[in-house]
């Protein structure tokens, strides 16, 4: 069977058939007990689980019979984040979930060709939560709509759920390579080869943006007491929200979109193709509606058509713009490299500078200054000053990255914006061209636990700032001893979040 996944906003109606059947399928899965491997909560537990958080959100009660320990050890807490397995693991997870919903749909008399819709929040007019998910009622007005989740608070914590399009971007799609490095340079489109480690601290480009950001802002955190953190904001509860699956269908679509460029290739290393099982870890697996187990490897997840589905549209909606072009366009210059020119391998990554101490992120703003090492900074300046109209030289220009290292905290919903090069007397909101990026620290509370897989060191986020540095250089602003960095939370962050950034650093990646 071959199915087509379609845009949830373009199905024709708020409660189009595909959405209605999705709701019925979700309802059927929610009706099954936790211990049933095809139940709603069991599937959510495959992504992550926290007894305390599930109880807090009302998804776990003392009378629940837990799954057997064999099922738990085989299926639960499998999610892959901060790793180059992020995309293939989620592709198989969504695929298996879709099969379970489809089975429930057909059992209820629905179409066998039902496919999971995707939510393309980038498209004009489609950034709001699809209406069927925002109402507690079915279309006939009766309550108990299974697509509705009370703990979905949105960017400002008031229940108005949408994705602020001014702060999401598709720049990840311009990443030339699937995998990168954890040493301060680009982590690549799909994430870093984590080797024997599991769940590395550095998220890949598409994982950071838009994946993390959409998770953090759709779930959000309740503005009023008791300031509950939304289900989508936390990896341990995200799978409990039906919108999770439409979000991940979109992330999966972006992978297919990235791959549609012939120059963009998936990894070919055996450790990626064969997955963590080749490194002594559990194989990726998911329970199927016919009581079988779907066991898969990343190598088997590379081609959606071979897996029996496609997307109706692979257009990313907002064109990704490589950083150099962004700044050149802004400055009215034509500095693009000649088409077809060979690009040199720029894998040398070096620290340019760092701030001196940890930055607590609280209130409405935090400021620090990144001290720059003069000789390394000079190399960056020289590199960016090269005549970029010469294609070979243009390829040798540095890329520059801001690293937010060891981000620790207790609230995964504590999203913030990062500005670079805004002077002390300026209002950051009036300098949007200096916005390095927006961070929603998805998974930070778990990563801050000393006994978690991250050993309490937190997460590290990498933001490309080549365009900002290029602007600063043209304004002679980068050839300075230090660089101002400003952290501006989307909503004021309280002390309870205990959010801090261990170090803010600048790295160059080039020859």
């Amino acid at each position: 069977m071959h199915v087509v996944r379609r845009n949830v906003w373009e199905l024709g109606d708020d409660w189009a058939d595909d959405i209605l059947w999705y709701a019925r399928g979700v309802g059927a899965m929610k009706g099954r007990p936790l211990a049933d491997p095809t139940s709603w909560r069991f599937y959510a537990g495959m992504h992550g689980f926290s007894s305390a958080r599930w109880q807090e959100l009302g998804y776990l009660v003392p009378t629940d019979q837990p799954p057997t320990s064999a099922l738990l050890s085989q299926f639960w807490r499998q999610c892959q984040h901060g790793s180059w397995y992020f995309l293939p693991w989620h592709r198989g997870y969504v695929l298996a979930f879709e099969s379970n919903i489809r089975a429930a749909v057909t059992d209820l008399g629905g179409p066998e060709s039902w496919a999971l819709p995707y939510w393309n929040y980038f498209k004009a007019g489609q950034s709001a939560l699809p209406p069927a998910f925002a109402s507690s009622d079915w279309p006939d007005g009766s309550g108990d709509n299974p697509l509705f989740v009370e703990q979905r608070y949105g960017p400002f914590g008031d229940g108005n759920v949408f994705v602020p399009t001014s702060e999401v971007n598709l720049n990840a799609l311009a990443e030339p390579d699937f995998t990168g490095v954890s040493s301060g340079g680009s982590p690549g489109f799909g994430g870093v080869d984590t080797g024997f480690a599991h769940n590395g601290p550095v998220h890949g480009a598409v994982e950071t943006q838009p994946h993390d950001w959409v998770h953090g802002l759709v779930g959000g955190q309740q503005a009023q007491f008791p300031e509950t953190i939304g289900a989508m904001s936390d990896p341990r509860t995200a799978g409990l929200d039906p919108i999770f699956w439409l979000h991940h269908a979109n992330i999966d679509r972006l992978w297919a979109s990235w791959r549609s460029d012939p120059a963009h290739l998936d990894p070919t290393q055996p450790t990626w193709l064969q997955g963590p099982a080749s490194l002594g870890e559990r194989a990726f697996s998911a329970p199927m509606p016919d009581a079988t187990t779907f066991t898969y490897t990343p190598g088997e997840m590379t081609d959606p058509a071979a897996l029996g589905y496609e997307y109706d549209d692979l257009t990313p909606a907002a064109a990704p713009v490589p950083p150099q072009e962004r700044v050149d366009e802004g400055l009215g210059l034509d500095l693009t490299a000649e088409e077809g020119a060979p690009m040199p391998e720029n894998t040398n990554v070096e620290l340019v500078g760092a701030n001196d101490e940890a930055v607590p992120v609280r209130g409405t703003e935090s400021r620090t200054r990144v001290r720059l090492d003069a000789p390394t900074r000079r190399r960056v300046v020289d590199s960016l000053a090269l005549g970029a109209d010469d294609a070979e030289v243009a390829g040798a220009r540095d890329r520059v990255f801001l690293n937010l290292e060891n981000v620790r905290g207790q609230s995964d919903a504590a999203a913030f914006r990062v500005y670079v090069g805004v002077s002390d007397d300026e209002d950051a909101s009036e300098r949007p061209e200096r916005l390095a990026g927006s961070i929603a620290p998805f998974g930070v509370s778990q990563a801050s636990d000393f006994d978690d897989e991250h050993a309490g060191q937190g997460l590290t986020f990498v933001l490309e700032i080549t365009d900002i540095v290029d602007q600063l250089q043209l304004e002679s602003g980068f050839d300075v001893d230090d660089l101002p960095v400003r952290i501006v939370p989307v909503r004021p962050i309280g002390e309870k979040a205990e959010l801090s950034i261990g170090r803010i650093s600048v790295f160059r990646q080039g020859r």
Partner: protein
Amino acid sequence: MTPEAHQRRRIRRPVLAVTVVAWAAMLVPELLGSPPVGASAGTTLAREAESVGHAGHGGAGLSSTGLDVPEAVHWSYTPPWGYVAGWGVMLAAMMAPLLIPALRHAYTRSLAGRRGRAVALVTVAYAVTWTAGGVGLVTLASVIRTPTGPPYTALAAGIAVALMWQATPSKQRCLNRRARHPPLAAFGRAADVDALRLGGSHALWCFGSCWALMLVPLLVPAWHLGLMVVVTLWVWSEQLERPAVPGWRLRAPVRALRVARARARSLRESGPSSVAAPV
């Protein structure tokens, strides 16, 4: 090879080269029957513990607690320089690979001009902290020998201690904390202090993870090196395990076996695996 794997290799290769040389320095003299000076550190240490323990057993200058190490007896078997050299070689052989993640962290997160210095400081702090721990271990071995009399009784006590520690939540906490990479200052004295702190804390958590296992070779009356090889493989394998919630449980580093099995299966099987779509 991925760029990340390439960067990992840049640190791993020289460290593993040092490890191989250190093992050669320990094994070759032992096999040739040379005196256990310097290179035969494992044997040296075991004999240090033995000599101290026997002296204590005979009441030669030890306090009633048995914790005081009499200098004269302790150094009578091996000169100090031999002890230091031997300890350094043994440390390199057994523990250098466990330092790779910390070295890589210091290397990649330091300014290019300070990388060598950062790596050196991490290494020095690691070695010094481990050395302090080593003195403690030798002392502990002597204490265990003192009251128990026959050497195999001491060995049994050492194995019991190792098994007990292996099952404790504290052991898991040490394994977990060893994987932590804190932020490092980039400039000046603060950068040096952070590098030293990284090496020292890494050694501390390593010591917490390994001390009980390393105690066992110090208590055997023979086959010190053979047992050291076993302990070394064990602690290297533990490095592959994922951090876990601390708790009381029997803890064995079985992931290394799973990796070996997966690699063997991969070698046996050839050709692309078929896709089993769940649709």
